[in-house]
């Protein structure tokens, strides 16, 4: 190929493959969530028997925790881009904490529903759709927390440097996605469906 003289743009620059890959994953995941959300919305009020969505309590505290974690992870991204590793570690830890709080909150909510209200995934159609949609989101939170914890450990051992900023940002895209999905799930389950 060396016979072709170089005519191409001298600054030939392409998008980062990490970002493109993560955005593609997010598109695919959105389709999965869409199907579950459509099922939930379609089945609202169609449950033939058993508890209804009125037994749900709106998880305000949880929601605030999860949504603010998007802000803190953004602050962490911002910090690592400028090489401020300590600030990065601090904001990252806050993000991890907020995410974990959300998960614990979901656990408390579910245990109340199961023990007090007697609603399980097999009780009725509402139980099936509720636990599967909220559970699908919670699964994504768990995956996100695993990722956050791994980066946290690396940070504690001092292995995170400024040059890792892009990887961190690619991972943060996923976390932002998990938060954005919660906005949809929250609206559908706790506002429209209740």
């Amino acid at each position, binding site marked *: 190929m060396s016979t072709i003289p170089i005519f*191409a743009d001298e600054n030939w620059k392409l998008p980062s*493959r990490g970002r493109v890959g993560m955005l593609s994953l997010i598109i695919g995941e959105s389709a*999965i969530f869409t199907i579950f959300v459509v099922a939930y919305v379609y*089945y609202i009020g*169609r449950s033939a028997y058993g508890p209804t969505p009125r037994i749900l309590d709106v998880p305000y505290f949880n929601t605030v925790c999860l949504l603010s974690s998007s802000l803190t992870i953004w602050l962490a991204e911002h910090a690592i881009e400028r090489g401020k590793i300590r600030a990065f570690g601090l904001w990252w830890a806050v993000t991890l904490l907020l995410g974990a709080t959300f998960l614990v909150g979901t656990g408390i909510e579910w245990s109340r529903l199961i023990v007090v209200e007697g609603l399980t995934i097999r009780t009725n159609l509402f139980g099936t759709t509720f636990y599967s949609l909220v559970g699908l989101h919670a699964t994504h939170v768990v995956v996100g927390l695993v990722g956050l914890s791994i980066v946290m450990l690396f940070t504690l051992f001092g292995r995170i440097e400024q040059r890792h900023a892009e990887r961190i940002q690619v991972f943060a895209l996923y976390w932002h996605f998990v938060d954005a999905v919660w906005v949809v799930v929250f609206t559908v389950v706790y506002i429209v469906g209740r």
Partner: protein
Amino acid sequence: MADQALPISGSLAATPSRGAALLEWLHAWVVTVDHKKLGILYVVYALFFLLIGGAEAIIIRIQLAVPNAHFVSPEVYNEMFTMHGTTMVFLVGMPMLFGFANYLVPLMIGARDMAFPRLNAFSFWMTAFGGLLLYFSFVGGFGLYGMGSAPDVGWWAYAPLTAKAFSPGHNTDYWALALIVSGFGTLGTAINIIATIISMRCRGMTLFRMPLFAWLMLVVSGLTLVTITPLTAAQIMLLIDRYLGGHFFDTQAGGSAVVWMHFFWIFGHPEVYVLVLPAFAIANEVIPVFSRKAIFGYPAMVSASVGIAFVSMAVWAHHMFTVGMTSVGNAFFVLSTMMVGIPTGIKIFNWLATMWGGKIRFATPMLFCTAFVLQFLAAGLTGIMLSVAPWDWQLHNSYFVIAHFHYVLVGAIVFCIFSAIYYWYPKVTGRMLSEKLGKWHFWLFFIGFHVTFDTMHFVGLLGMPRSIYTYEADRGWNTLNMIVSIGGIIQAVAVLLFVWNLVDSYLHGAEAGNDPWDAWTLEWSTPSPPPPYNFAIDPVVRSRRPLWDIKHPNDPDWKYER
């Protein structure tokens, strides 16, 4: 394939034993992250299942050849058509086409490898595991009833037949789990192809200088992202119903069987385009090279492909006209389905215009592509017929529908897959496939295809429903069914000839050289087979046909392209 002559580790003086060498060779294939090796693995895996799925088709055809037959039991017959459909779509079609993408896309865009080589290996092994899981059901799917049994609910697996009460045992779970697992593999590959095409192109390879093959693979991968995932979601719901006692598709608890149909076809219809767009991609490479002309209407081809991808996501309920919809719903899906004909028609005219006035060489790849254009046109026309709701009410679930979609899946996709194998085999192995056997293969397969599937339209028009075990002798279907089955045998013979050709030419075929077809895309500038690093020097391109520019320095393409 002999691209790495690495010494066996730990052997200094002694030559390793044959067993150790074999083990090392096998090990190299299992741990590889090279896109070319993974591409070969995909294609070999798909060919293996093509033979299995083909054998299942032959069993179906033997059973249906004469009325009141008892060649297999009704239970086995149900397993055969379920496994035939599932195998051909998930274990043959997609792995084959993604295998080509894996091998060719990095070479075509001048990259060293895929964007995520390890994800690539992971995706392949997930897909492979999914296939093995599906077929393990023959042994392991026993559940409550003793012997092994394969899934028998049809490849569409309509509710409520899939509920635990009606499908006890584990065979339906094998079906769902296998497709979830291979679905993750497919999702990984799609992400990888998108990232590769967006982020790994060589210098000068702008999007509108990419070979159309790469363009179409980009579109297909994008479509895959939003197509495979609804199936995964629906399968998860099915498993929740079956294992956790959920009620998604349980009509007694307020669930709906029709929702499954919607979810399945939201996946199922775009899936057809996931399979057929790579076939178009192959035709887009083969037809220009063997017509000795640049492709006609490159931008129109790109936009038509993107158009097909978009329209294909809004047509799914034409599989459900007989379920009953509002007249508005019917009208919407009739019109959206007909609209697919517009971009598809653009493509057919572009291929014809590419051939028009060209110096056509009818080598085997071109023969298959020419037949493809003809057959795909016919398949499209019966598609337009079936898109008309009243017509569909008459013929839904008849053999007319089977004939229509086999015209697409075999007449278009399988023909293009064969074309691609004849075209790129020299690049992959360094040897030419035998032209003589190739011609035999083409003509036998072409004749067998038409004997089977042309006749099948008439069986359908006479009212024979799909998925039936057998039929009475007085229906007037006897002769036609016999002809259909004979055509199936002819196709099977042709495929066996092809497999023989693959093996024999690998051992004794003529040397191919770098560029046996005098082609224009970057993969032909590398040695055959390409070295692990693909390009010794990163290529730089200035036009859509970089090799043309090299071969004709006085008349390069970039003077005319903008």
